[in-house]
């Protein structure tokens, strides 16, 4: 009988039963004896020098634990890349909502009033709120030039392409901040013990990021810091770096109180204070031949990093490398920079810079198509990367991909041609239909040498009852880590999926398999789990306890025998960079990613010119992500990412005033509901990749990249008016439609020769 494969099957979610019965324990569901509740006193000004702190009357302050920067035993910083972000501000504040003091009390309901009763006087310092003011040095707020990081990519001879160009096409594109809006707000519980050090439990993505931050704040060795991930109710990047701050705060209160402390952010605090997607500006100037081929171009990609450097250089890196899209550029120059402003630091959010620069290139391709007078499909087809060609970092495409075929299939699935012809003839005056395409790629794993520096380790162990346990710090945040890694181990060992479990991420129990980011879990960690599983099997075979072929029962018995006679049965695997991966960090050249996922998305929209509202009527998401490890989970990743992308394009606007988010509530920051979304139709193409576990590539971030440009291109198709900024809200459409009669409105940004 043919053996059934667990890889590629819809294995049920490992922790699914607990989730559908309400038994899963999230951080706010956990309470410790004698636990206090913590709260944070934050800056109300965007930039200033702290002059005086007054504790108001009518509050029994002696009952509160109060922590300031003076209580920090180690370094007052959140260790990440530059360590420029304080744990608690002591002399100056650089953004609104910056934490200054911490309070704890046994009674949760007394905290908000106490926070309000503390008044802080500031000597105001002049702030900067946007990219333009930051780069013009209206005020210097970081270093001596407001610049966190720059990159320069140079390929070919860009300065030589302009002479031979039939068309030179220019465009400028903007994307706004976006809130991750996980439905579970951030939260932590901390405990401190003079002998054992600090323990925190929390809602988080990256246990070892929190671990590193706590070691620095408490000046403790690694064995005296323990970080445990509780069930986590969504993250999307929003629980990558900020949880380190909350963990440090809860632990400082716990140390001073001598009791455990729980901090749970309410929705308003979570939205106003924690990270969001970096706002961006991208400028394109592209030389195009008569037949629509890209000859070369200049791309300027700039992101607003907020007040501290945090992860901005890494976000900038990914956005920069994706700025050319899935196209062949014989020559290109990309200048990228992350600048400082006095907004709360922007941070990780699914896609990590790529959705911003891909929005720009995919809008720009439609602009090129219009000027060259080719269809949006044809302009892409003529410029697609092919196997053997090089990306903008000179990485040779070794995967056997065929983007033309992907495009063709997406056009058929969306009924693109006939629908577009139909709307061209039948578009009414009040309801206009349009179709839009986005073609894109997303690199899986850390950029360049990142995976080599991480040097991740995973473990697979046998248990005394003959089961298998996967040991990783990679976290389940809804995306399916638990399930797919157990599938990989079960497949490799040839044991039932039900016999494999995964350890709760706890830094005293699991090795550092790296952070749960960058669409790396299936491809990089999955492959390591497969290697560790092979090691486990070989251990049992080489000691004679297991034959070369065996049944599940024999495997169980062999584990039990090994453990009872020899002790621990554990196999570790460490990441080794494939030999063909070369990356030059100085010149930003080489193999940026071990693999790319590829996709073509097509949106069909209706613009209602009575309400100036856009509805997405149909959405086709077709992608090549290598081997699909679990079709139900994979489809869920894509549909969920597309929904977030639709929000990014059409609904989700952060309203800023003086560097503070004004709409930090779900009532007025609008994410899509079940009534707003179209049928999201998800399709996969498997074209093969050698790198990941069973040929899997990254999938988590990819679907965030395509929806916004596909939808905006569809709106442009419907109305014939260019829109280059998202979110695209009804008021922007209203304004644009009102001025559309002016003849130069469309042609101002192009030069045809």
């Amino acid at each position, binding site marked *: 009988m043919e053996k059934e494969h667990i890889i590629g099957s*819809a294995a049920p979610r490992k922790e699914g039963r607990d*989730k*559908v019965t309400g038994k899963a324990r999230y951080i706010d569901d956990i309470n410790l004896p004698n636990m206090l509740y913590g709260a944070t006193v934050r800056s109300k000004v965007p930039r200033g020098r702290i002059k005086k702190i007054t504790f108001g009357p009518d509050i029994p302050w002696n009952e509160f634990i109060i922590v300031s920067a003076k209580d920090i035993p180690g370094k007052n910083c959140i260790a990440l890349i530059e360590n420029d972000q304080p744990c608690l501000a002591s002399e100056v504040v650089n953004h609104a909502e910056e934490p200054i003091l911490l309070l704890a009390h046994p009674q949760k309901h007394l905290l908000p009033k106490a926070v309000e009763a503390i008044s802080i006087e500031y000597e105001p310092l002049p702030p900067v709120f946007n990219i333009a003011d930051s780069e013009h040095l209206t005020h210097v707020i970081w270093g001596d030039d407001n610049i966190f990081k720059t990159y320069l990519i140079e390929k070919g001879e860009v300065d030589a392409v302009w002479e031979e160009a039939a068309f030179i096409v220019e465009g400028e594109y903007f994307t706004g901040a976006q809130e991750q809006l*996980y439905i*579970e707000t951030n939260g932590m519980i901390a405990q401190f013990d003079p002998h054992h050090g600090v323990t925190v439990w929390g809602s988080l993505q990256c246990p070892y990021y929190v671990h590193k931050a706590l070691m620095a704040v408490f000046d403790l060795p690694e064995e005296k810091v323990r970080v445990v991930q509780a069930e*986590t109710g969504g993250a999307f990047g929003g629980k990558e770096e900020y949880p380190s701050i909350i963990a440090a705060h809860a632990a400082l209160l716990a140390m001073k109180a001598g009791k455990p402390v729980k901090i749970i952010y309410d929705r308003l605090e979570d939205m106003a204070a924690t990270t969001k997607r970096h706002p961006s500006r991208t400028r394109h100037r592209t030389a195009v031949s008569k037949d629509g081929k890209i000859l070369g171009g200049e791309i300027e990609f700039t992101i607003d990093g907020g007040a501290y450097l945090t992860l901005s250089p890494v976000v900038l890196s990914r956005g920069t490398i994706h700025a050319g899209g899935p196209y062949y550029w014989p020559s290109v120059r990309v200048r990228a920079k992350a600048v400082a402003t006095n907004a709360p630091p922007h941070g990780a959010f699914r896609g990590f810079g790529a959705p911003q620069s891909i929005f720009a290139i995919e809008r720009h391709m439609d602009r090129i198509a219009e000027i060259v007078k080719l269809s949006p499909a044809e302009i892409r087809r003529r410029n697609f990367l092919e196997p053997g060609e090089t990306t903008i970092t000179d990485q040779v495409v070794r995967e056997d991909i065929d983007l033309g075929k992907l495009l063709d299939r997406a056009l058929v699935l969306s009924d693109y041609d006939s629908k577009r012809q139909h709307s061209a003839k039948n578009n009414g005056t009040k309801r206009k239909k349009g179709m839009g395409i986005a073609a894109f790629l997303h690199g899986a794993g850390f950029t360049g040498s990142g995976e080599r520096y991480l040097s991740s380790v995973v473990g697979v162990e046998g248990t005394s009852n003959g089961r298998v346990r996967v040991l990783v710090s990679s976290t389940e945040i*809804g995306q399916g880590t638990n399930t797919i890694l157990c599938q990989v181990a079960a497949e490799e060992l040839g044991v039932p999926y039900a016999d494999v479990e995964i350890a709760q991420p706890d830094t005293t129990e699991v090795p550092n398999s790296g952070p749960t980011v960058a669409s790396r879990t299936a491809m990089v960690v999955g492959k390591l789990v497969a290697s560790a599983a092979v090691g486990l099997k070989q251990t049992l075979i080489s000691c004679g306890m297991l034959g070369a072929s065996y049944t599940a029962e024999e495997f169980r018995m062999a584990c039990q025998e090994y453990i009872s006679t020899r002790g621990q049965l554990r196999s570790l695997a460490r990441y080794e960079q494939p030999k063909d991966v070369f990356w030059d960090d100085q010149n930003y050249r080489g193999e940026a990613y071990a693999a790319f996922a590829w996709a073509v998305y097509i949106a069909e929209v209706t613009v209602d010119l009575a309400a100036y509202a856009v509805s997405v009527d149909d959405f086709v998401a077709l992608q090549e992500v290598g081997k699909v490890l679990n079709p139900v989970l994979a489809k869920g990743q894509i549909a969920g990412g597309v929904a977030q992308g639709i929000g990014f394009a059409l609904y989700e606007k952060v309203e800023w005033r003086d560097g503070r988010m004004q709409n930090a509530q779900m009532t007025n920051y609008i994410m899509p*509901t079940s009534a707003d979304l179209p049928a999201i139709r998800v399709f996969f193409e498997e074209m093969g990749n050698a790198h990941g576990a069973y040929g899997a590539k990254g999938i988590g971030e990819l679907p965030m990249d395509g929806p916004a440009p596909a939808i905006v291109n569809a709106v442009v198709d419907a109305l014939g008016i260019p829109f280059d900024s998202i979110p695209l809200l009804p008021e922007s459409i209203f304004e644009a439609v009102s001025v559309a009669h002016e003849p130069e409105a469309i042609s101002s940004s192009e030069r045809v020769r």
Partner: protein
Amino acid sequence: MTGKEHDKGTFSLTVNGEPKTVLAHPMERLLDVLREHLGLTGTKEGCGEGECGACAVLMDGALVDSCLVPVLQANGSSIVTIEKLGGDRSSSALQQAFLECGGAQCGICTPGMILAAKHLLDRKPTPTLEEIREALSGNLCRCTGYTQIFEAVVEAGRRQVL
């Protein structure tokens, strides 16, 4: 120190079929009574302003956001939370369908979402897609894009009428 003890009152509710009495401030949220007084942490808080539906429960058969209901208003009522589900055929079919169809990812919206779906299926065992969209539009999910939640509700309804 709380100074509020004298403001508290005794409230009686039937929770998941069992009579319960709690001593609480009349304006205390039903959500906190369930989670903190009764230890029923399956009901989640997402926004605290009735927008996300993570705290949805059934109160005398109606779907309510428990963060908006003061315990005073719930006095004498019958409450059903996620912890009750699984006992009867229709709700266990729903939970099973959510599990199989990928209706739960991070799981934080799932209890409220399943109660909203139960509320729909109890009235309408074979709803149309439009009816499902409408019935679940008060429950926000950030993970799934809702597609697989719709599939789960359709599947549960189908199994229920078989």
